[in-house]
């Protein structure tokens, strides 16, 4: 599975899905006009990677803003990960939020409630 690297724009996050290394990253803001078009290929690739099987998978999500469409898309990315974890794969999701950013922290907690097999870590980032 090829690595997917997309630079960040003002409306979409940096994407670095390194399937071979088992490390996925989303960082930035996410409010593309068409969230389905942006996240569709990522979801497709993720599913393909999970079908191939492999080692531990870590997904770092560090979004400072995402709209409701992106939230839905994130949910769609998380579901196959949770399913894979249920089947025995070691999956860790690291949810990064800025110190004091209740909105993102709260959203992370909401997502965390959907996971019972994958590890969902809340990572507070202090301002540099």
């Amino acid at each position, binding site marked *: 599975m090829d690595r997917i690297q997309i630079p960040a724009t003002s409306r979409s996050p940096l994407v670095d899905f390194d399937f071979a290394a088992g490390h996925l990253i989303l960082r930035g*803001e996410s409010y593309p006009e068409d969230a389905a078009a942006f996240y569709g290929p990522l979801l497709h690739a993720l599913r393909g990677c999970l079908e191939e099987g492999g080692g531990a998978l870590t997904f770092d999500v560090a979004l400072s803003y995402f709209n*409701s*469409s992106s939230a839905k898309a994130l949910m769609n990315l998380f579901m196959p990960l949770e399913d894979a974890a249920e089947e025995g794969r070691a999956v860790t999701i690291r949810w990064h939020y800025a110190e004091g950013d*209740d*909105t993102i922290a709260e959203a992370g907690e909401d997502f965390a409630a959907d996971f019972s097999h994958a590890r969902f870590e809340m990572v507070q980032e202090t301002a540099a």
Partner: protein
Amino acid sequence: MSGETLSPPPDVAPAPVQPRRSGSLRGAGPMRRGDAPAGLGFAEVPTTQDGGADTMRPGALRGAARGRNLDGLAHTLFLRLAPVIAVLVLLTQVVIAWVNYGDQIRLSGERAQMMADMTARALAQPGWTTSFGPQLQALGLDPSVRFATLRDASGTVIGRLGEEPRGRSLERIQVSSEIEAGPEAQPAGSLTLVLSAEGLRAHAEKQFVMVLGASAVLILAFALSLRLAVARHVLAPLTRLLTAMGRVERKDWVTVDLAGSRRPSREIAEISAAFNRMVEGLRSGDEARHLLAELERTHARLAEANGLVMESLGYARRIQQAVLPGQAALEGGPLDVAVLWEPLHVVGGDYFWVEEIDGGGTAGLSVLVVADCTGHGVPGAFLTLIVATALDRILHDQGLRRPDAILAALDGVVRARLRQHAGNSDLSDDGLDCGICVVDRAAGTLDFAGAGLALTVLSGDGVARIKGRRHGLGYRLTGREETLSAVTVPLGDDRTFFLMTDGISDQMGGTSRRLLGHRGVAEILERHANQPLAEQVAALDAALAAHRGAEARRDDMTLVAFRPKGD
């Protein structure tokens, strides 16, 4: 001289400047067959006469570029230089001829003297005074001898030959020789000889005529070679330059060829090279201008297209606003209601509804709905229309009054409308967050149910937030949905309720550049808690803008604030 004729450039190059100083060059040349008036020559190229503004008047160069006016240059050069050369050649030749003539005269004099001496020596014999005849006659054999006299010691002429010539002494050479006295019967005497110089003069005249002819030939040769060189190395390149200028004037970007048999003189080559550089500069400037014009046209088309889109959106906004409750519905009821509805792009996916409705009991119910459909702009606006229609049917046809029941019904309608059945994975995965409050003033209660949307309650105790179900309405089912449920809270006397979409709290900005969040919104609301409701909402709007600063808004935003009207 030939050096001058074959190297015209150094001498003639400055010539074109001369007409500026005076009109003499133009006037100097007589009209020749085929000549245009000399006044149309170089000086007429409108560089100085009409001022700079007319310098590049279209067509100004065309007349000059035809080239025939340039004949004036060679013509003028010839007329200026030929007399000088002619006079110099003539003077030189005349001096040479004069010196030559003088030498001839001297040589002839010496010869005559020798002849006289020889004859005198031959005569010097006893009795010569009587026997001089043959010697004297022998002198007559020389055709140039005109006259000879023989005198004795007393000066008496004893013999003569020929006639004594008259006229100018210039034309004759006169010499004399003494006859020395001998021992016996040989008295002294003298012989005078006069020779004609006419032959010499005729010879000098002939030489003079030949010099004149040679001068004329030289001048002709000079004129021809000058004309040829000027035509080849000056006039032809200038004509090419002028032709090119004429074409450049019409924005035909041609350059001048600097090679070839008609290679220009160095100065003209430099001017031509400068001209070529100028043309390149103009050409690129012209291309830049064209690109700029093209850009402006594209910009105009984009502006027009954008104008059409904005016009269309403006119309759509009027329709969307017509679907929202009017001012009368907001003010007429038992609740004090204030609304902030601000789509991100003219129209949006946020929707609200406020209605006084028959509750079946003694008093009516107030239904307040805020919905945040996925997406914003036009796609969001489409969804709001579905929600508006569905809500109308649910409230009036189905008569549902419990907020959780209304949400469930909305969920069903939206999913049916967007055909989001299980297994139909290609279609829409859209939906909405929604919060519904049903206020029963008589009972003093408020029923709230939310799907992804919370109820914020501001009271003397601070700000409380009642979250709804975590998942929205519509969307494809994930199997993880929480069941919808309603909560009932007392209306209270000092409570203000807020239903707001996440666009209100999701304001990126501030010094740490992060989202304002619910807590930030709550702080703002608390600061303005004692103000009238409309002012609270306006203050919140201003505070949100202040938090954003230079950041753009991220989403549509809607807030419906309400509280029971005071008695």
